[in-house]
């Protein structure tokens, strides 16, 4: 049998083929490891690849299956993990030079759960350093390329995971999303990306970026796969106090959308959006209408303010969270003449430019005399933004926007203008500010580059998002 038969798999297709005995997990895993070897040189999606461990996990899965003890749809399925999520005994860099030699002490809760579900871990994917950026150009391990055009960025910060899924270098992947880092690269690489509700998935073992925004979620080839990964890793965890005993995913009828009301926030559909993106997403809206959904314009105030809130509170949390990377507690030490110089050099040389910029911004916003004007005021505006979302969800079931204002840009094009890069997050950050869930689904392409449509749901309404996205995906296929 030739290798390509084992490639091009989704979670559901591999689960079915494994179940029917059409292939083994070892054949499947071997094929994906071969695909990584063939493509990673040009795409740089992975920072680390676990050839031996993955084959061992695959073998264990095949053994379980042979004895009738299969663990479920993920058993034996090879997946990729963003390199800011800990996998015990393996290097976790978070894309940073300062963690070049860090070996994870334990498994993140999501990894523990995925291992318990039988998943095979292929390796760790590239990201912007400490998940700060929008293009995966800010990795100390080089930029990841977009598989649709290798001169372009894959989006970020989960660009390695999005690229690996789009280029079929894994069946599915995990990413993390603080301001759009799952959804925006999913959109730019043409795959599905889901950011769950804040509190739905444990972040224990996720290297913290901004703790009041961070969530872990799946990047997958289909909506159904995203639901499978979410169900495997969600739930309350004593190791992350923000997790709650949320209701299970309420899955309904994914065929028709009669009775579903979709809101288009008029503030989001204004200027600053590429025409091709607007056109593709509007065509997507027409598809949803044809499935029976009612679509209406709604008001969602504070769109620009949400970005401002994010770029105040985010850096404040970053400046606190990243203080541990000082060459004493964590990270490579660069010796100075005294303790303070050791701190200054270890951090100055170990942390990259974007990380340094955000730490400086956060240090400023938290400093004496500015705390009230920035941190406190941003937190109050955050309350208003939460209320604005809650008000919108009184009128509609979900909100719909493009995932990103543009398609993938050329590598290097926006790297020298941080504010311009920040503005790329305008459609995604508000969701993290409000804590609600959102999914990006592919909805066409513009000049050969994928466009994503974002559906935003009320707190813990991931089931509704998956239903609507799934209906759209089937109608749009």
């Amino acid at each position: 049998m030739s290798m390509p038969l084992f490639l091009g798999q989704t979670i559901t297709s591999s689960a079915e083929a494994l179940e029917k005995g059409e292939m083994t997990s070892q054949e499947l895993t071997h094929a994906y490891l071969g695909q990584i070897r063939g493509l990673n040189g040009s795409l740089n999606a992975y920072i680390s690849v676990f050839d031996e461990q993955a084959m061992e996990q695959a073998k264990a899965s095949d053994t379980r299956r042979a004895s009738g003890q299969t663990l479920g749809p993920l058993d034996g399925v090879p997946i990729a993990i963003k390199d800011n999520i800990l996998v015990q005994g393996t290097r976790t860099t978070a894309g940073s030079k300062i963690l070049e030699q860090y070996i994870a002490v334990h498994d993140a809760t999501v990894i523990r759960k995925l291992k318990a579900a039988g998943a095979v871990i292929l390796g760790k994917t590239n990201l912007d350093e400490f998940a700060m950026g929008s293009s995966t150009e800010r990795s100390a391990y080089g930029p990841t390329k977009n598989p649709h055009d290798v001169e372009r960025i894959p989006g970020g910060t989960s660009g390695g995971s999005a690229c690996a899924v789009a280029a079929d270098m894994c069946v599915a992947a995990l990413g993390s999303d603080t301001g759009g880092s799952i959804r925006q690269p999913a959109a730019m690489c043409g795959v599905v990306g889901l950011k769950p509700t804040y509190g739905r998935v444990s972040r224990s073992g996720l290297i913290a970026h901004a703790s009041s925004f961070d969530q872990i979620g799946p990047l997958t080839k289909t909506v159904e796969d995203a639901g499978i990964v979410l169900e495997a890793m969600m739930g309350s965890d004593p190791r992350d106090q923000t997790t709650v005993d949320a209701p299970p995913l309420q899955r309904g009828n994914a065929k028709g959308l009669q009775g579903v009301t979709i809101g288009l926030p008029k503030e989001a559909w204004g200027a600053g959006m590429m025409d091709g993106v607007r056109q593709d997403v509007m065509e997507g809206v027409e598809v949803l209408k044809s499935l029976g959904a009612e679509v209406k314009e709604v008001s969602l105030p504070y769109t620009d303010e949400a970005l401002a809130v994010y770029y105040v509170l985010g850096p404040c949390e970053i400046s606190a969270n990243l203080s541990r990377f000082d060459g004493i507690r964590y990270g490579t030490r660069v010796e100075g003449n005294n303790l303070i110089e050791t701190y200054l050099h270890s951090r100055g040389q170990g942390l990259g430019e974007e990380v340094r910029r955000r730490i400086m911004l956060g240090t400023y916003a938290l400093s004496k005399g500015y705390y009230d004007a920035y941190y406190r005021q941003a937190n109050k505006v955050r309350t208003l933004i939460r209320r604005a979302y809650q008000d919108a969800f009184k009128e509609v079931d979900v909100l719909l926007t493009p995932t990103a204002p543009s398609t993938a840009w050329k590598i290097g094009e926006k790297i020298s203008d941080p504010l311009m890069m920040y503005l790329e997050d305008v459609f995604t950050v508000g969701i993290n500010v409000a804590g609600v869930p959102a999914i990006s689904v592919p909805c066409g392409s513009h000049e050969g580059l994928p466009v994503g449509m974002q559906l935003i749901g009320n707190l813990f309404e991931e089931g509704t998002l998956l239903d609507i996205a799934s209906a759209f995906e089937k109608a749009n296929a």
Partner: protein
Amino acid sequence: MSHLSTQDIDRLAELARLSLEKEEKEKLRSELGLILGYVDRLQKVDTAGVLEGSMLPRLDLRADESLATNASVRERILVNFPDRMGDALRVPAVFEKPKG
């Protein structure tokens, strides 16, 4: 309020424990100025009577029991330490080295 002086940048770099080249400091001064210029729109939002948002969508935090510590992680933690001598962790002296 978003105008930063060279002295402000020096002070922030010291507080943030970041050694920065002079060039980068100058660049940061203008970049942070631009970013602060953007986020200053928050000052115009009327927040009279609004409470600060909690980081949680829900406020009913659980009282989780303390987790038992697994002693076997000790070596795995130690292995990541930048400098050690046996089981002792070596750190720079808090006071400066005597001159000479």
